[in-house]
């Protein structure tokens, strides 16, 4: 049924390790950077890493589900970015800074 293409026989681990590394880097970015733009970018990285993991798994089992999940993640990322960036603009207008630590009105 399907057009079989010769593809590279890479162990699944390697793909997953890549995803893990990207994910960890994204996490470091979120935790270490104070600039909200960087934080948003790091979130994108982490989402992307998650999508990568899905695609790797999908490729391993030769199923379409992995890619479907990636599409959903893309949708989530798009929605998140649009709202996140709007908020970011709002914050910048109000506080004249992108420093996440400066916005701490919720301090108990």
């Amino acid at each position, binding site marked *: 049924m*399907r*057009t*079989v*293409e*010769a*593809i*590279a026989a*890479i*162990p*699944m*681990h*390697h*793909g*997953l*390790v890549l995803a893990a*590394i*990207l994910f960890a*880097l994204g*996490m*470091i970015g*979120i935790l*270490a950077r104070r*600039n909200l*733009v*960087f934080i*948003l*970018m*790091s979130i*994108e*990285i982490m989402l*992307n890493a998650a*999508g*990568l993991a899905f*695609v790797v798994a999908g*490729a*391993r*089992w*030769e*199923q*379409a589900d992995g*890619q*479907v999940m*990636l*599409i959903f993640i893309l*949708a*989530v990322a*798009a*929605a998140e970015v*649009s*709202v996140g*960036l*709007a*908020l*970011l*603009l*709002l914050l*910048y207008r*109000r506080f004249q800074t*992108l*420093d996440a630590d400066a916005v701490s009105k919720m301090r108990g």
Partner: protein
Amino acid sequence: MEITFYLSAAIAIAATLMVITVSNATHALLYLIVSLLAVAIVFFVLGAPFAAALEIIIYAGAIMVLFVFVMMMLNLGKAAAAREQGWLNPGIWTGPGVLAALLLAELAYIFAQGGDTPWGTAAVTAKEVGIALFGPYLLGVELASLLLLAGLVGACHLGWNQAGIETGHEEERGHENG
């Protein structure tokens, strides 16, 4: 083919590392695009051409363009980059680094437990993805569309408020303080 995978993986990791370390936001954005393109290549190598295309079109294209627009609107100059540099003292990396190391260690342990698994040999085409998407995942698609709509409305709403920034914000502040 394998070499392509490892090469693009290395590029992706390197570019991502740059994203989280550079102080200029625009540069970081460009590195991020690089990283995403590298991941797109990885997808292609893994036999997911449709995913690769989407990665480029939507991620590297659409979403990143959003970031670019925002950068333009913020109009950050050198001063911002300098302040960014000031925030990036070495001490800040230790905590996240330790956490990330722990996470990686744990994941590595899980992979080691799993043992070797052979790779799939067939590519999954766009057609199959489409069938899956509008077959069993129809509900998910609808939900995703709803989510996007919500994101759209939310962004619109937040953006609309900007019209009354000068007066409206003062009012809002008054509310909060009072």
